[in-house]
């Protein structure tokens, strides 16, 4: 064997462990779920998959009010959490943009909300929102006395909002860190020129900084969307899907079908509808990343 030939095989040897693990942990379940989505399979009746029933599981989803509810909840939650975490993240970035000592200290604090376990975030906010002894509830009641009677996690729309809030609390600081990095890399000349020409601070931001940040905004927005669509942990720990079904996200609904009702066939079909949605955003995100890769 020549050395050129050996060199050709080296890369495959290097990649083999990763590729084998991923085939086992991702590709296998990915295909298996797809096949299961066309079968009748209730674990309560049989430990092995039942017969193929064509598109019945998918057709069932389209007539299932619980499914449509979870789609709606997921859409509302995703829009609120993506928009607010981007806006707040950008605002924090602009506040901390200059590299002073105080800002550097603050930047290292920003890591913490992001690194906190999402399940724990849910409980922590649930505690603070409690109508009897919650500190956030008390603070809001003090400022807006007319809201004293609101039970935050007992009202459908507020529950979705606070669910989004737990997510924003973790993601806005991370997004801020990304934006601070991006702001630092922007060319200074145009900014200074605009200031010399008498542009106001707001004009400089709106007409010069913001357009230059567009690629980063798109990338972070897509990434955040992908993570929001598969929201699960805080649904369990903050609201348990309630009140009623007001905070049942699609991922939580799939979980209930699969692991409360043990309907593997139906859960797989629902999961695949989730996959389809995720892959639209993932496709855009990957294309965006790869474009940057070649440039």
């Amino acid at each position, binding site marked *: 064997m020549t050395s050129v030939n*050996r*060199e050709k095989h*080296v*890369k495959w040897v*290097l*990649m083999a462990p*990763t590729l084998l*693990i*991923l085939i086992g942990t*991702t590709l296998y*379940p*990915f295909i298996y779920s797809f096949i299961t989505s066309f079968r009748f399979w209730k*674990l309560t009746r049989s*430990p092995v998959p039942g017969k193929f029933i064509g598109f019945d599981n998918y057709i069932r989803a389209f007539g299932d009010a619980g499914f449509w509810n979870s789609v709606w909840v997921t859409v509302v939650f995703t829009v609120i959490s993506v928009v607010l975490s981007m806006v707040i993240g950008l*605002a*924090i970035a*602009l*506040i901390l943009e200059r590299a002073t000592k*105080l800002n550097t200290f*603050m*930047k290292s604090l920003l*890591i*913490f*909300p992001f*690194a906190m*376990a*999402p*399940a*724990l975030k849910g*409980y*922590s906010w*649930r*505690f603070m929102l409690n109508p009897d*002894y919650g*500190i956030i509830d008390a603070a809001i009641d003090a400022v807006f006395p007319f809201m004293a009677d609101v039970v935050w996690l007992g009202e459908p729309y507020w529950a979705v909002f606070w669910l989004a809030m737990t997510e924003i*609390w973790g993601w806005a*600081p*991370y997004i801020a*860190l*990304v934006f601070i*990095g*991006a702001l630092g890399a922007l060319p200074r000349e145009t900014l200074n020129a605009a200031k010399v020409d008498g542009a106001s*601070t707001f004009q400089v931001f709106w007409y010069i900084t913001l357009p230059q940040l567009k690629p*980063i905004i798109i990338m972070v927005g897509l990434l955040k969307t*992908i993570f929001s669509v598969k929201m*699960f*942990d805080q649904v369990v*720990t903050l609201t348990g899907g309630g009140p009623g079904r007001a905070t049942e996200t699609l991922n939580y609904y799939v*979980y209930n079908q*699969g692991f409360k009702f043990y309907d*593997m066939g139906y859960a*797989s079909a629902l999961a695949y509808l*989730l*996959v389809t949605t995720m892959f639209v*955003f*993932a496709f855009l995100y*990957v294309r965006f*990343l*790869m474009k*940057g890769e070649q440039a």
Partner: protein
Amino acid sequence: MTYTRDEKFWTGVRWLGFGATFLFMVFPIFWMVITAFKVARDAYSTKIIFTPTLHNFVSIFQDPYNFGPLLLNSIVVSICTVAVAIPAATCAGYAFSRYQFKTKNALMVAVLSSQFVPPVVVVLPFFTLFRTLHLLDTRLALVILNLSFVLPFAVWMIKGFVDALPADIESAAVVDGCNRFQVLRHITLPLIMPGVVTSAVFGFIQSWNEFLFALILTNRKAVTLTVGLMGLHTDKGILWEHMAAAGMLIMVPIFVLSFTIREYFIEGLTMGAVK
């Protein structure tokens, strides 16, 4: 230099924003920390002045909560996941960075996309498979599934760090007759060590915070800390002072770890996309 009214206004806004950000970011953590030191009676109030106690930290390790084994499970699962993922990812990340070949882009996209497969899709088939193999409620089951998201992430991160290293550094060693494995082991690896360590810390944090897989696959023996929190939701309601103490048990190690890698934090998380 004199400040214009516009500049004065925005400086004021900036300070206000700074205060608001600080409050928004730090307060929920602060509140959990002080609650962990309160006796039950004080925890169910908005008191800030109280007599601190360490009782909650002792109590969560005793019957009926027994967080000791849960802590051990979290540690073992996270370390094992990282121990498998990082060596594999280092090799793959190196190969993706240094070699050009036809299927490279397709493979890289496949690795990246595998991260976006929703965990619930992964867990559905594995639940039935592990049931058949009697692997439900084992740490091994969690390690296997945690690899599904820790590994692809680590590959991309490490690839980014190898990309940033000029290839010339390696060519001298190749001329001297080293093979690729020797180059990777003795030349590249020491130079990308910060990147490898950062990826390892990230992998650890991701495994440590994982909730969905542990919720579905464990019920007694292999329960991890995040799922263990649900054990404090009792018939008598949620025991908040215990919850806060257990929360600190989850949070503090992660804060220490993420603080040590804060310099690489952004770079790592965006997988090198933001340069």
